[in-house]
């Protein structure tokens, strides 16, 4: 999906900046939303198990026993979607030198001073961090989750596993919640247009040029201008 001849024009839209570039394929989007849905289910039910003050969340999804029954299954579906995401995007997630400079100057990104940052590839450093953190978290949640799922089957002489699993599962889940909140905030409220790219699969030239300039040059066949 890197050829410039696949560009489309919006109906009646001739403005160069508003021309659309394919960004996410249908299967990438389907998998992303499958991951979002399964994560959200695990988040809601997990928070219900986390504190009595949020136990009412279990009622929202059918009650405590139902939540307990489905939480591990939805967790497994989430693992699958994470793995597919890894296949889709893993190659685009290598951190390069521009990313390192970007990360060192992240305060400009936070302060919306993006002009002071190096050009960004298909994904920025924050997205890459989110991607890898989610991948490793998923592995830890899967391993600890299995112990919690079949806690009764853990032989008593290995009961330290139960203790470790409960701490790992809760701690890692909290980390993913922090990442998830940032991800949702940035892709809906903060970076305007991002949400649409994951819905429609396309991004405008201007959006791509603004937020992912290196990627824009790649997919449009333009070489990166000398600086």
């Amino acid at each position, binding site marked *: 999906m890197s050829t410039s001849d696949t560009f489309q024009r919006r109906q009646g839209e001739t403005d*160069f*900046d508003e021309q659309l570039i394919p960004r996410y394929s249908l299967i990438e989007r389907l998998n992303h939303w499958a991951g979002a849905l399964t994560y959200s289910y695990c988040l809601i039910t997990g928070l*219900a*198990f*986390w*504190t*009595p003050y949020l*136990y009412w969340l*279990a009622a929202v999804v059918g*009650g*405590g*026993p139902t*939540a*307990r*029954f489905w939480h591990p299954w939805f967790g497994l579906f989430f693992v699958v979607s994470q793995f597919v995401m890894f296949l889709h995007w893993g190659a685009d997630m290598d951190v390069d030198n521009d990313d390192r400079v970007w990360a060192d100057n992240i305060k400009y990104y*936070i*302060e*919306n001073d*993006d002009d002071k940052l190096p050009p960004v590839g298909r994904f920025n450093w924050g997205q890459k961090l989110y991607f890898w953190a989610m991948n490793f978290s998923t592995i830890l949640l899967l391993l600890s989750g299995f112990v*919690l799922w079949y*806690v*009764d089957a853990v032989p*008593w002489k290995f*009961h330290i596993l*139960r*203790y*470790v*699993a*409960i*701490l790992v599962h*809760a*701690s890692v889940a*909290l980390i993913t*919640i*922090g990442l998830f*909140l*940032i991800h949702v*905030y940035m892709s809906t*409220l*903060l*970076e*305007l*247009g991002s949400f649409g790219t994951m819905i429609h699969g396309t991004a*405008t*030239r*201007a*959006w791509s*040029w*603004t*937020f992912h300039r290196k990627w824009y040059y790649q997919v449009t066949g*333009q070489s990166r*201008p000398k600086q």
Partner: protein
Amino acid sequence: MSQGITEIVRISGHAGTVPGAGLNREYQVCKLVDTTTCIGCKACEVACLEWNGYTFTETKFDNSYQTMPETAWNYWNLIKFNEHERDDGSMMLLMRKEQCMHCEDPGCLAACPADSAIVQYANGIVDFQEAHCIGCGYCVTGCPFNIPKFSPEAHKVFKCTLCNDRVSQGLEPACIKACPTGCLHFGTKSEMKELAETRAVQLRSQSGFPDAGVYDPPGVGGTHVIYVLHDAENPELYGGLPKNPHVPWSVRLWKGPLKWLGNLGMAGGIIGLAVHYLRFGPKKEEPIAPEDRMPEDRRPS
């Protein structure tokens, strides 16, 4: 428990003191298991099944007198048989009736996330309310005695109730009633503790068990099931009775500091993002710079 209702505190128009004033009623109950007089007859196991309405299920025989390796969701009372070689080379069969210990500081209750699924009564009984249980198994992690057991059929966790249904009606637990040797006793915690200590003294001074003692582990705040052991220094000999049980450190960490840290982090995160949005607002796409346009698309600037 229910006795509190009939205890009179004030009486109108009554000359003199209230009858029963100054009465000190002990609500705390206790089961005493004297392992030194248990004969391993398993009458308690049968009585437990009978009273609680469980039929005998498939079991695993591992070449001992023990009915099954561990208690099960529908088998709450199990005598653990352990062959022990004494210093002089002779063999001794240690028999310990295992069931829920009804801890004063119950790890299962600390770990449980489901509202009302585990309650601790004023008399010390820790009881599972299966109607509220969601079957998560956190209690299994929280218990230092490996007692709560998950039922794959019911998707809920079960354990000994200390016959709460009988005790609340003034009856003793079924296992106590069935015991033919009198190695099981039931009464108030202080009475049972006193009886146990008396028996331990007897064992130490008259029966040649210098290490005999009472098992009422302080790590879980004491228990409402206590043991008299021939060798209180080595409770592990009796089928893995932990020497110093306590609510697991990971459960304490999880339900304590981690919970507060996590809650603060989540609330702080949401507030932080909101503040960021109000302070800096959204990032908008910008018009492409003229030098990055294709020549035919370059706008007059």
